[in-house]
């Protein structure tokens, strides 16, 4: 962000001292477009390895850089620091609203809440939801999915399916994200997995 003064100053209409109007603009793309009077702090004192004469030799800068790298190395080596997460054993913190693997909600009687309206499949930008509907005995229910597959390899975790669902039957709050599998087919999650293979202690 660059502090600029009101442009009327530049036109020279008034010699009066004006109150400065500070406008914050994003940095100009081309420096030639920059207003002539913009305030920068005084050039910083160059560190010794950046002085022109010494810089010619490269050597001071190289030594300074080597110092930085060896500093990191020694810090990590002696303090046994582990700046990264040892992933499969230690899971990173997953925020509550992280869009993770889907789950299908259940009604009170344990049947699937989804009504096979196909809204999610329509909204899905990657077309990875496969639904086959069928009739059920319950006269109250018009239809229900017989097959509800999500292809986890195609899914982009956009969450549109959750937004689209009119009856809150699909959610993405399991906190589970896919890891490695042996076969591609293992990434296709069927209805059973989506309904039951979910961690406990999730909100209803």
């Amino acid at each position, binding site marked *: 962000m660059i502090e600029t003064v009101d442009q009327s100053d530049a036109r020279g209409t008034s010699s009066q001292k004006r109150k400065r109007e500070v406008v914050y603009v994003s940095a100009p793309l081309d420096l030639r477009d920059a207003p002539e009077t913009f305030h920068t702090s005084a050039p910083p004192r160059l560190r010794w390895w950046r002085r022109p004469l010494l810089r010619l030799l490269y050597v001071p800068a190289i030594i300074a850089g080597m110092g930085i*790298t060896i500093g990191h190395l020694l810090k990590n080596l002696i303090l046994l*620091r582990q700046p990264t997460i040892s992933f499969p*054993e230690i899971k990173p913190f997953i925020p509550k609203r992280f869009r993770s693997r889907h789950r299908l909600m259940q009604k009170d009687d344990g049947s699937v809440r989804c009504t096979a309206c196909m809204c999610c499949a329509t909204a899905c930008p990657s077309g990875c939801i496969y639904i086959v509907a069928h009739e059920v005995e319950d006269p109250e229910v018009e239809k229900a999915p017989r097959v509800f597959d999500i292809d986890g390899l195609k899914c982009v975790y956009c969450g549109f399916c959750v937004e689209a669902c009119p009856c809150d039957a699909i959610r993405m709050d399991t906190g589970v994200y896919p890891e490695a599998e042996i076969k591609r087919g293992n990434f296709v999650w069927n209805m059973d997995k989506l309904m039951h293979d979910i961690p406990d202690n999730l909100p209803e």
Partner: protein
Amino acid sequence: MTEALVLILRPLGALGFFMTLIPIMIWFERKGCAFIQDRVGPNRAFIPGLGLRLAGFVHNLADVVKLVTKEDFIPAFAHRGLYIAAPMLSMAAALLTYAVIPFADDLTLGSVTFALRAVDTDLGILFIFAFSSLAVYGVVLAGYASGSKYPLLGGIRGTAQMISYEVSLGLSVMGIVLIFGTVDLNEICRVQGQLLFGVVPKWGVFLQPVGFMLYLFAAFAETNRSPFDMVEGESEIVGFHTEYSGTKFALFFMGEYVAMAIQAAVIVTLFFGGWQIPWLPTSALIENASQVLVVLLGAIAVGALGFGVLLLRFHRWNKVRWQDERKREGIILAILLGFGPAITALLGLTIVLSTDLSGSVPNVVASVAQFLAFSVKVLFFCWVFIWVRWTLPRFRYDQVMFLGWKVMLPLGLLNLVVTAGLRLLWL
């Protein structure tokens, strides 16, 4: 009989030394760069049953298995014969060079004296230059024979670079040759045992600082290490070994590391006193052999003990992290690498203190001490090669050429002339 044995054992020993350096350097490279970049580095491969990971060292074994079992692919457009010959040439040129590097001063056993280096010749530096200049062939042929554009580019770039820097490499050493008056590396080492102004050892760095800088840079360029890795340039062109896989690629890979280790050894020999322990010439070492042994064993004991304590700390923190067999690793390592050696060294210490060294034992002790000094220095310079690689960005190609011809060559000539003048004035 003994002579024949020595004749065979010397090259084998030297070969063993440099081959052992390869996995150590690869390990340095991986683990070192990881720590420099605030990562953990390789730590997954482990020996099943024991759960030993040796801080990523086991990855070397896994690499060997992988590279050997990989398909040995020859592209259709490759020139078959040259394609196969190139990695061999690269490795052979690298492996020929080590022959004249002395590991310790000449060892006298009873009445026989033999030099502790692979080939007993006084050609010294010339031998090294002659055979390291053949390393170019590997790069050129790999680039040409692959029948593909990126290797060709890499080969041409690499050749131009190596030819250019060979000039500076030779020139920067000439100052050392002028000062010490010999090209025999063992002789150079011996001279470096003297003292300069009675305080500092007469090492090449102190006599030829400019020459040392030039040699260091040229050595980086010669071994195609970053910041001069024009040959590989993995972010622009993948380099001369793009088309190689399996064992052939492994040969290139190992050739690079061997060349690096040898350059480190040459730097140590020319500029850092080689096998000299500062302020302790060979005769002093032999005279005070028992003290030397005591200090050596004591240092090993203390170092191993400290290492063991460090490993125990590692174990405490390790056993909660892994719920499989790896959780015993820390304690096994602490016993194997820390407390075991420490106890052995202490035992040796008591034996040494209670007996008198006689016969040719002091000579052997002196040689071992010098060899250890040499190895420590070489390992340090191997580490410098890696350290620089993970610190500096790569030069652009024209910058490489500029530096080689317009900065290093004139500086080298100037250094040579000034050295010659000073030598004329004072000697």
